[in-house]
């Protein structure tokens, strides 16, 4: 099994986990990226959203569980084929929520480039931004080292068929 272990600075990461936990708590009954489901009837839409929220809850719980008692003794987190996908999705959900909750005043182009002047931010916003970057770094680590693991089992049918119907 392909596996990567990352040693993190406890002093740097611990304050960011508080922010991540805040964002996670706010996601218990709502979606990080609320979908537009105008084309669905109300009953189907409710079931659709409920399943997305349940899946999101599982992902976020898996991410937070990485930072357990063992992490606080070793500073090490590990990613492998068992958790790579779910952790990447959890990072995406938390980043979206952090953006909505704390980073609304940061222009999109600065968020996309990461070129934000930290001195100009209030303390809560600065910590949220650092957490936002931390979660992106986790995603990049997984993308860099475990992308083949994530892609190993694609959800779509073979590309030829998808391409045939794609019609773009």
């Amino acid at each position, binding site marked *: 099994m392909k596996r990567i272990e990352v040693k993190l600075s406890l002093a740097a990461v611990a304050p960011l986990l508080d922010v991540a936990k805040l964002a996670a708590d706010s996601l218990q009954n709502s979606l990080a990226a609320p979908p537009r489901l105008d084309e*669905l009837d109300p009953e189907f839409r409710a079931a*659709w959203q409920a*399943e997305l929220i349940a899946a999101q809850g599982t992902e976020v719980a898996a991410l937070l569980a990485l930072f357990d008692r063992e992490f606080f003794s070793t500073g090490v987190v590990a990613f492998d084929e068992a958790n790579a996908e779910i952790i990447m999705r959890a990072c995406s959900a938390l980043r*979206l929520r952090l953006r909505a909750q704390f980073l609304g005043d940061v222009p999109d182009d600065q968020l996309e480039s990461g070129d934000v002047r930290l001195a100009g931010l209030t303390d809560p916003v600065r910590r949220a931004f650092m957490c936002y970057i931390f979660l992106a770094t986790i995603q990049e680590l997984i*993308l860099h080292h475990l*992308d083949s693991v994530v892609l190993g089992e694609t959800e779509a049918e073979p590309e030829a068929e*998808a*391409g045939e*119907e794609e*019609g773009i």
Partner: protein
Amino acid sequence: MQKPALRGCARRRGTFNAFPLNRIQSSTAPQHALHPELALEGAWRVVVLNDPVNLMSYVVLVFQKVLGFDEPTARRHMLEVHELGRSVVWTGLREKAEHYSYTLQQWHLSAILEPDEAH
């Protein structure tokens, strides 16, 4: 990955029961009748909208994973989303469009369903 709601969707529509394929696969049947669901419901598009949060490399991976795109195709669609604000990533039957839309939303991409006016 569990998607019971999508199975529920299939039961709800039941278009295959309404138009069993063995009733229309004759030599005189028009070619388009081989897709009775399209005749009943039209084609649907799965559109991914831009967001300033998800990493470009993440979006490329999701397109590969969910839609089965090769890397250049996934990258082309990602850039279309990034530069134009949206990209049509799939067109076809409603039920399958719902499946792709739902799965892309599980990856926290802004995916929507639209009727394809061209069909």
